[in-house]
């Protein structure tokens, strides 16, 4: 029999980019009132599901755990992950976490991952390539550093053969094939697959799945090491950029190319 897989997928509840997004409060943190499961995490979830399905799925003892850190509303990202197909959900939630930067976030997530691995350590930690709000891409690499795991970031393909993971990583100057041995941390790009949508069956099944809520005390993290005060960076000011407004719009009457060049010349852009 093949070994079973335990995969933890990190899922984040982020403001929906289709609406105007705002920074609020003293710490200039992101307003999360209209939030969704970060689209980029759906690719990580899909990758996890494909990996376990190739090994007989949940029936064969494989598990995909969706883990989200965030305020009360973040449980929605976990619920959506369960509807898509994750086996169980974990919500790390604590008031002291508010305003955590990447370093503090990776500290808390690393502790949560260790906690969830107390019995059987996870074979794979999967994440999206970036959150669609912070967009720093720092957390996956910082988690790998904290957990002392090989990192395979920005994977645009992923294969698992026994305990050997092979991925493709598309850079500017070159495309690389990367190999690592499990356990490992992998972040995937939006090139890797086409995420599935939750279907009716999935939505019904999700209702029976467990969501565990964890506090900082549960995972043994000192509240002083996270949140705004435990962060290593501080946002000092934030200014909304004036929204761009439409300029001159013309309809081509056969000479628009020439008008374009005249515009560029007037702007001293030629």
């Amino acid at each position, binding site marked *: 029999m093949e070994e079973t897989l335990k995969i933890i997928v990190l899922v984040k509840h982020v403001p929906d*980019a289709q609406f105007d997004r705002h*920074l609020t409060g003293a710490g*200039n943190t*992101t307003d999360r009132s209209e939030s969704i499961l970060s689209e*980029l995490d759906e690719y990580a979830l899909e990758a996890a599901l494909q990996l376990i399905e190739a090994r007989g799925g949940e029936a064969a003892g494989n598990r995909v755990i969706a883990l989200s850190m965030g305020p009360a509303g973040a449980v929605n990202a976990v619920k959506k992950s369960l509807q898509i197909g994750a086996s169980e959900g974990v919500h790390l939630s604590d008031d002291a976490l508010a305003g955590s930067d*990447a370093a503090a976030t*990776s500290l808390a997530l690393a502790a949560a991952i260790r906690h969830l691995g107390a019995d059987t350590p996870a074979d794979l930690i999967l994440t999206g*390539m970036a959150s*669609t709000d912070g*967009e*720093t*891409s*720092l957390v996956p*690499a*910082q988690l*790998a*550093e*904290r957990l002392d795991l090989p*990192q395979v970031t920005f994977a645009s393909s992923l294969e698992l053969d026994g305990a050997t993971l092979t*991925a493709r990583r598309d*850079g*500017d*100057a*070159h*495309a*690389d*094939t*990367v*190999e*690592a041995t499990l356990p*490992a941390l992998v972040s995937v790009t939006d*090139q890797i697959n086409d995420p599935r949508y939750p279907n009716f069956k999935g939505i019904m099944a999700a209702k029976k799945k467990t969501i565990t809520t964890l506090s900082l005390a549960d995972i043994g993290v000192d509240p002083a090491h996270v949140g705004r005060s435990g962060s*290593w*960076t*501080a*946002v*000092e*000011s934030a*200014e*909304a*950029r004036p*929204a*761009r407004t*439409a*300029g*001159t*719009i*013309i*309809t*081509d009457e056969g000479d*628009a*190319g*020439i*008008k*374009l*060049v005249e515009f*560029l010349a007037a*702007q001293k*852009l*030629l």
Partner: protein
Amino acid sequence: MAKVLVFIDNPGQALKKASLELLTIARYLGEPAVALIGELHDDVAATLGAYGAQMLYRPSAADLDDYLVGPKASYLAAAVHAADATVVLTENSAEAREIAARLGIKLGAGVITDVVAVDADGTAHKSVLAGSYITTAKATTPVAVLTVKANSITPEPAVTGTAPATVTVEVPETAPAASARITARNEKAASGRPELTEARIVVAGGRGVDGNFGPVEDLADALGAAIGASRAATDAGWIGHDAQIGQTGKTVSPQLYISAGISGAIQQKAGMQTATVIVAVNKDAESPIFEIADFGIVGDLFTVLPQATEEIKKRRG
């Protein structure tokens, strides 16, 4: 005076403009030193001196490129200690940001990405939420790690150049153990056009080019521009993924961005709306790209672009 360490990963035969920008910022913040990976060509060494580098650090190991990020971060941490640096500057590429990320954990240092300007006291300016906010941020730790976007400053050589001494930094032997190994590398052909994130002008094509980037390329070449694309165009395989601009592609802030046959979805705008001037060519007057274009043309890109290219050539004689 603060010691500022600039990290340059494989400079090759000549330093990129982005590296010269980092050295210029470093001089402004304190006393610059450079941590380098890869071969050090004479020209590069001379330029580093001309830009005021006081010291050059090189790794004891020659195989750092064989691994993904981890060992490079270990080397850089050792170089920071050797240089006694309080500020580390790197470029803002995906790989440099990841090295910065791991370095931050190793040093207990705050990391700030996407920096566009740095004040003398270390306050970093960056734009967030797809360019809709400008923020200032500061590391609250003894060491700060900043990844700086290209085109943040005009590079200037130092008034008095230096002849920096070279020091070898020991890379911890344990570094490669927990790292992913690069087992194959496919170099991509250089286009001869400017690098996308550094370019002053970008001409981008979307689904509207319908498989034919010719008119986009011709206009780009007439303007000395880089070529960009929407995800629809890269997904269709009409152009390489490295040309993709947007949320999951590159962010560009050129002086001029010409968008052709791109509708202007939010994920596309996320990568280009900080351009100084935006020009859009699109058949559909209702396309959202027109909401942010300084000059919009409702028309067919297959007639508008070639006409503009001809006109530019004519004016240049």
